[in-house]
């Protein structure tokens, strides 16, 4: 029996150079570990897993893992993943993306994949910033917070990715953080196990840019912030709105059973081919 903590290393690409490319303290490493533990707990065969990503810090994840990996263009991971899944529905397709990649340039592909309810799992690393390009604000940067292209504070509203996903028709929507790792493992496991479009938003820390520009420039500090501002949904439901001020909800936010795209398309194929046979 392999000790739980050793699991991660069995799923890393031995030919790839480590340590990884992310900043010291970046939450993406935690997300990588959580994703691997979830895959391991479900006993999913490595050969059947495809991890897709777009462009950004989050999107550097797939190259490190020993699966079929597809590092695509900015914002388009979900569209590529759709092609992979539809062409071979046997494959387990995971998309790792970021707040800019998924919700700005990739927004359209995101909402349509939700609408189609295609059996893909999206792990959305939300660090409220465009890290790779030097700290520009993103669609999830909270109003008033600074980015390198919002030097006086973001004047725009920000998305709640989970509400967007639910409204667009995703079957399974959850949120966790890189502090709440046990919960994160459970949410990702549930998402991978779900037949349908599943989204796990992971609040992560970019202390290098978001943190520094907003005077939260230390990973430990940012994790402590996540700890004190996250509210699990079971507790949040019982609290009055004033108590939720400044906090965000975590846990499984939406889970419904509905027809999945590949399944429905296969039904169509079967119907047509049996008509042909008659």
């Amino acid at each position, binding site marked *: 029996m392999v000790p739980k903590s050793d699991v991660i290393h069995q799923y890393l690409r031995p030919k790839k150079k480590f340590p990884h490319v992310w900043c010291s303290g970046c939450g993406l490493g935690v997300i990588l570990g959580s994703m691997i533990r979830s895959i391991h707990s479900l006993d999913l065969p490595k050969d059947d897993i495809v991890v897709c990503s777009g462009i950004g810090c989050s999107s550097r994840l797939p190259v490190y893992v020993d699966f079929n990996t597809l590092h695509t263009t900015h914002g388009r991971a979900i*569209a590529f993943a759709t092609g992979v899944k539809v*062409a071979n529905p046997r494959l387990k397709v995971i998309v790792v993306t970021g707040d800019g990649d998924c919700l700005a340039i990739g927004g359209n592909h995101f909402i349509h994949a939700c609408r189609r309810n295609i059996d893909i799992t999206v792990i959305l690393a939300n660090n409220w910033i465009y890290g790779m390009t030097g700290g520009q604000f993103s669609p999830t940067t909270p109003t008033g917070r600074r980015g390198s292209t919002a030097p006086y504070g973001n004047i725009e509203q920000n998305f709640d990715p989970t509400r967007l996903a639910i409204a667009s028709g995703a079957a399974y929507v959850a949120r966790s953080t890189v502090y709440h790792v046990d919960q994160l493992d459970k949410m990702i496991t549930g998402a991978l196990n779900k037949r349908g479009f599943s989204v796990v938003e992971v609040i992560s820390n970019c202390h290098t840019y978001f943190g520094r520009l907003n005077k939260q420039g230390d990973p430990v500090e940012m994790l402590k912030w996540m700890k004190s501002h996250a509210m699990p949904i079971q507790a949040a439901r019982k609290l009055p709105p004033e108590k939720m001020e400044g906090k965000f909800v975590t846990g499984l936010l939406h889970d419904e059973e509905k027809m999945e795209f590949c399944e429905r398309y296969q039904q169509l194929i079967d119907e047509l081919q049996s008509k042909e046979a008659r």
Partner: protein
Amino acid sequence: MEREVRLLQGNEACVEGAILAGVRFFGGYPITPSTEVAEGMSRRLPQIGGRFIQMEDEIGSIAAIIGASCAGAKSMTATSGPGFSLMQENIGYAYITETPCVIVDVQRGGPSTGLPTKVSQADTMQAGFGPHGDYHAIAIAPSGVEEILYSTIEAVNLAESYRTPVVVLLDEVIAHMREKVTMPSKEEVKVVERRKPTVPPDWYKHFEISPTGVSPMASFGDGYRFNVTGLTHDQMGFPTANASEITMMLDKLKEKIIKNNETICEFELTEMDDDPKVAIISYGIVARAAKQAVMMAREQRLKVGAVRPKAIWPLAVNTLRKQLRNVRKLIVAELNQGQLINMIKHHVDRRHTEIIPLQRYDGELITPAQILNKIKEVKHHGTQV
């Protein structure tokens, strides 16, 4: 053997050709005048266990077909000018990741929304140089409905042979016109499969430098667990910023195509056997008018011939120069403000051959009469015909 004869629209012939070639995934978005390809694929693919998806836009379409190709499916999309422009970034991705796929571009008036329901050949240069960066394109250009069927098969085969995206360059007229097609049987059609790896997974390099110039290609789920990235990469497919690895990668993309220019690009010659001094070069629907004009000219005892490249990219310049070595006046007829002509001027010896443009870009066709007039005009300027 009895072969089925059908009256098909150009776009329909494209669908049938794709299916005969083994295409089993289509991701597309409606756009005039290519929509019939998507409609045809949506109807035919589920009948044969293939898969069709209408994506939310053209960018999603090209992304989906590349993803599907990585998962092992022969894949295709179809679009027109505006959609073709949107697709360019991901076509570049297909180039650098050496992923086979076919993009049908049914040309219409441009730029931008342009003239959605009428013809042009204004994407000629774009088919060769759409994406940013360095790469070498293949674009096949049929000029009739039956040829569209075979050209689509050829495009799929070229994509799979060379691990590259291939453009099928149609135009609104040949895509929408209806002509008789004698359907080949499945057995008659030559289908090329991509070369699979012959080494165990731990020894597999998705971009291995190989003697043929084209690396074998595993699919997701085959047990090879490889990385595909749009970043410049080494033979393993891992990103690299190393100068020599980058040079090696880009040279590989170049060599695999340019070494094969002369085989990829074929020509159709009309009345060139007696070395006419005047010739017309054109492609697509214009070549039909050129052929007609040559017939009419010959009836009037004018010695003239026509050359039709069946692939615009790469242009087999050595073959072309040979064919044109006795031509003194070359009319380049095209439905744009001068795109093919740039390449002709670049490659043909202008000390011996005068290049004369015949361009139309108002959504209407260059007629055989117009070409004949040009031939006569050109003849009057002192050519021994």
